């Protein structure tokens, strides 16, 4: 291994920070979904990096499960965005007022 664990962890922290910025600043529902995807990928990168340095197969298995669950989450999230877009004719989450319980 020419690269060290710390380098992968630092890249993962940078991706997490960018994702948190996107969730905090953006009001476009599709962009917020992008930010969630970036955060999920940061977590998966951490899992695989630590699994390589253990070394143990469990980390890769958990990363595979995590990718599959993220696919399900995106499908449902995009369907919800389409329903909300059809009701409000907008993707701005500040307009989704009647969703507040």
């Amino acid at each position, binding site marked *: 291994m020419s690269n060290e664990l710390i380098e992968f962890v630092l*890249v993962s922290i940078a991706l*997490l920070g960018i994702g948190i910025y996107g969730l*905090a*600043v953006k009001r476009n529902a599709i962009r917020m*979904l*992008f930010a969630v995807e*970036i955060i999920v990928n940061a977590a998966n990168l951490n899992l695989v*990096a630590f699994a390589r340095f253990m070394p143990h197969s469990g980390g890769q298995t958990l990363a595979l499960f995590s990718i599959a669950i993220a696919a399900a989450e995106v499908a449902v999230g*995009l369907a919800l965005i389409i329903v909300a877009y059809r009701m409000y004719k907008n993707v701005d989450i500040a307009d989704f007022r009647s969703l507040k319980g």
Partner: protein
Amino acid sequence: MADALFLAISVLTIGSAIAALEMRSLVYGSIALMGTLGGVAGFYVMLDSPFVAMFQLAVYVGSIAVLILFTVMLVKRELIFKKIEDPKRKFAGIGLMLITILALGAIILDSGVKTITTDSDPVDFREIGGDFLTYYWPALILMALILAGSVMGALVLARREDTIENEQ
């Protein structure tokens, strides 16, 4: 120290993550998101995990990014090119990002992670396939049911009820 390939992939990944959130057009944003996901797949190859890298390419770059592109196409044209964000929150968001990166980075750099190295061989992907079919088989079946349920739920949610009434 990091080699040139690692630096190139990390610049691609982080740069296109910023581009995905900051580009004016949502279509270009989702293509930049593809760049981020592909860069993470490159990291998986560097970590000797080709199985996860292939899964990442097939599921994320292949299907999720295309699903997002199709959703963007369903949205009105003005909304694709309009930036919807709070200007007041922008500086707070940048501050939050810097605090997260600096605090977590300082904690990680101060911890023992820096000294971890390995000379051992990578995990064989055949071992992962074996694990899936022996120890993790209940989880695999549960995951298949969750995927089927979520896809059916997405279809039911996105179904248009007004089209049938209009035809009558």
